[in-house]
């Protein structure tokens, strides 16, 4: 177990390192020169060159990369143009939004968490619930309805569903407020009402797939010997289905859920854009458009951390749920 963990963590660190290097290289291939964005009219090239120098954009790539990494570990001095001393873990200074990137992240990360976590709970409940019902009521109208729902969801796009929901519930019926983010600690009700559309559109699209998956799993498990044995032993139906069958059927669902949530936490670009909420994903996209290297690095790295962590967690969970799996 410990050996497994050490191995996984080592490989995860290596992955993050590679992600950071690749992102860094990618940035320097971007068509946008971040510095020209700083003077909209009447720019003179010599002045720009000095700004570039001061920002360190003229240093060799290796030096710049090392400087960035050093900042994360020990903090560094960024100079007056970038807000001076930046303590560890220093994610740099955004010369586009003029603030420390760690401030940006502290602001947008809770937004994405607030979108993804409730949505994930919703889609799991909805998806697995539908899947169970349709498996236990196989062949009935309920089953058909659930499958139809799931295939429809899987065939729709979020921006499409989102636009229609916004039009109906916000602009025409005016049942819901305009989507926005309020901290849950400030006003839980406003937090929920501002994000509920995002949760439901995400849940509709995702749950569809979980419904199909858990239905298939459940059907397979129900035909397995141990379920039949349990039933033959005289155990009550709910107990068999609830404890034994569900437990076996849920394993792959957990795997996929872990990876999905991990991916989504890195930013839900389309959801955030559709509903006009500034989360991690949209921040990353804006940063790429503006050529804002420190923000690109930070958002990409955080997204990667979530994915990698989710991978490790899923492996651990897998072992916890399914005793047949041994970690080595």
């Amino acid at each position, binding site marked *: 177990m410990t050996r497994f963990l050490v191995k996984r963590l080592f490989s995860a660190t290596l992955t993050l390192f590679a992600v950071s290097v690749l992102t860094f290289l990618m940035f320097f291939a971007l068509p946008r020169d971040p510095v020209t964005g700083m003077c909209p009219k009447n720019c003179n090239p010599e002045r720009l060159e000095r700004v570039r120098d001061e920002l360190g954009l003229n240093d060799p790539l290796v030096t710049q990369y090392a400087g960035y990494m050093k900042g994360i570990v020990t903090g560094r001095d960024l100079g*007056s143009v970038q807000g001076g001393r930046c303590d560890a873990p220093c994610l740099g200074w955004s010369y586009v939004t003029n603030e420390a990137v760690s401030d940006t992240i502290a602001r947008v990360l809770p937004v994405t968490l607030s979108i993804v976590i409730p949505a994930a709970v919703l889609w799991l409940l909805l998806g697995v619930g539908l899947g169970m019902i349709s498996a236990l009521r196989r062949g009935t109208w309920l089953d058909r309805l659930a*499958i139809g729902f799931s295939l429809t969801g899987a065939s729709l796009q979020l921006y499409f569903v989102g636009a229609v929901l916004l*039009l109906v519930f*916000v602009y025409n019926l005016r049942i819901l407020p305009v989507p926005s983010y309020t901290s849950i600690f400030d006003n839980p009700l406003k937090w929920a009402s501002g994000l509920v559309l995002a949760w439901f559109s995400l849940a509709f699209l995702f749950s569809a797939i979980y419904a199909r998956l858990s239905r298939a799993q459940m059907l397979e498990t129900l035909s397995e010997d141990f379920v039949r044995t349990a039933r033959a032993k005289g155990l009550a139906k709910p107990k068999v289905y609830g404890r034994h069958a569900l437990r076996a059927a849920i394993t792959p669902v957990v795997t996929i859920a872990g990876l999905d949530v991990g991916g989504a936490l890195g930013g839900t670009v389309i959801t955030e854009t559709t509903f006009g909420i500034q989360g991690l994903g949209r921040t990353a996209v804006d940063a790429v458009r503006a050529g804002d290297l420190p923000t690109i690095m930070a958002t990409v790295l955080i997204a990667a951390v979530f994915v990698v962590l989710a991978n490790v967690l899923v492996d651990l969970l897998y072992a916890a749920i399914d005793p047949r799996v041994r970690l080595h």
Partner: protein
Amino acid sequence: MRPRVAAAAGGAIALVVALGACSKNTGEGTTVDTNRTQTGVIATDPKDSQGPAAEVAGASKGGTFTIIRETPISHLDPQRTYSFAGLMASPLFARYLTTWKDDGKGGLVLVGDLAETPGNDVNKDCKVWEFKIKDGVKFEDGSPITSKEIAYGIARSFDPDLTGGPTYIQEWLADTPQFDTKWDFKKNKGSLPPGLTTPDDKTLRFEFAKPRCDLPFAVSLPTTAPLPPAKDTGVNLDNKPFSSGPYKIADNQVGVKLTLDRNPNWDAKTDPVRHQYPDQFVWSFGPTPDAASNRVIADNGADQSALAFNTVPASLVAKVAGDAALKSRTILSPTPSANQLVINNQRVKDLKIRQALNYAIDREGLIKAMGGPTVAAPLTTLMPPSTIGFKAYDAYPAGANGNVDKAKELLAGQTPELVLGVSDGATEQLQGTQLKANLERAGFKITLRNIPDDAKLDEIKKKDNPWDLYIGNWAADWPSGASILPVLYDGRTIKPEGNSNQSYFNDPAVNTEMDRILALSPAEQGPEWAKLDERMMKEYAPVVPLFVDVAYNVHGSKAGGVFISSVFGYPAFVNAYVKQ
């Protein structure tokens, strides 16, 4: 079993999508009147520069005025402010040496803001200018504003850390575009840039090597906002500027929300243009232009006293313009932002081809593609109608849809192959597609070359860019020909990159004429620029003027007092109020 499910699902979607009513569009009622006349003067009567500003009819105190915009304001630090959103937000919390008294209908008077008059040309040669500072002007902490703090504000605009702002004053004082090496702000913090002096607390004096007759205009930009040296937080000032205007920054969640509260130390009696009606201004960032317009149209809750800062998108124009109830909640006005089909004169040297392009252009079709008269208004001159001294003319009269025959006649059977560089953003893609079909009618062969949206501006500003045509835009910093024609068409300013002269037009006769006009007093310049404008189009046809942007904004039922700035073409908030 599943086909039935499929049909049901498909049906449900069809129903949702077809929500809109199915009525016949007969195309009636789609004319928009955007006429207005521009008059611009510099105040000669010191009374014009005195406060308080005249009360706005129907205005009342109180409430929160919300402004919704997709992207955040790029800089709040006045010395770094240059974007339109910044220029429109800045007067709420910053005062300048001079400012525009704007009736929102094109009537402009340049008046003293912190200064008692819009400047005194001491020797009548535009080389020495003096400004007397008003009594009773204060910062948000109650300390008095003197010429020292204004001078410090100008001095810090020399700091290379603080990029982004206009550079006119700096370049004129240093007499070189390399102003930040000529005078190093960081090494000379206690002193002032060359040519800038404060003989006493009430006087600010500029001395230039060359005549700078446009100085009264240039000091209406936020570069001249005052700042006490002790309150200078360097790059951090961008998130919390120190206020001299009627509002001060209460809270700034960067990129999300900017909240401004009343500044009790602002005295209406000293201010000729600003008011202090709402308790609070809130800038809210994030929603797309579509979402913002939809919100404001819905007119719900706090959005009742909100304004969508982005103009109504073309896709929603039909809904807004077609709804009589919404009419009172929209503001519509042409702006000074002029768009041209820029011809790269280094590549397209044949005057006949440039003239043929001017005959061929179908402005009506292009404007229709963009969403019609609420998005753009046709333009046949180099300077927009909002320029002081403007005179309307059409050097190549060809009607709204262009004159294909006339163009073919000029081309005399040849088929010029031209490459039109367009950004890959949605709007320019649309324009490019339309222009290609538009010009090919007249016998041109147009190749569209996509340029990444983020890189397009940088690329066409390079002298040796490889394209023959591109869409260019210029919005002047003040409505004088001096901030348009010399900037865009003085061939002597052409450098390897970063050019404003994107047509790379260079003609010695025109250059000399520009020098002559620039040395005239601002009042005399207007008609002369208009004459030069017409001469250039007739003799050289350096570009194809296309259209001016039209501002079309929607606001909530309780928002009042907003007008489109006659200087910048964006909603101005100095008169804004919330109906109680």
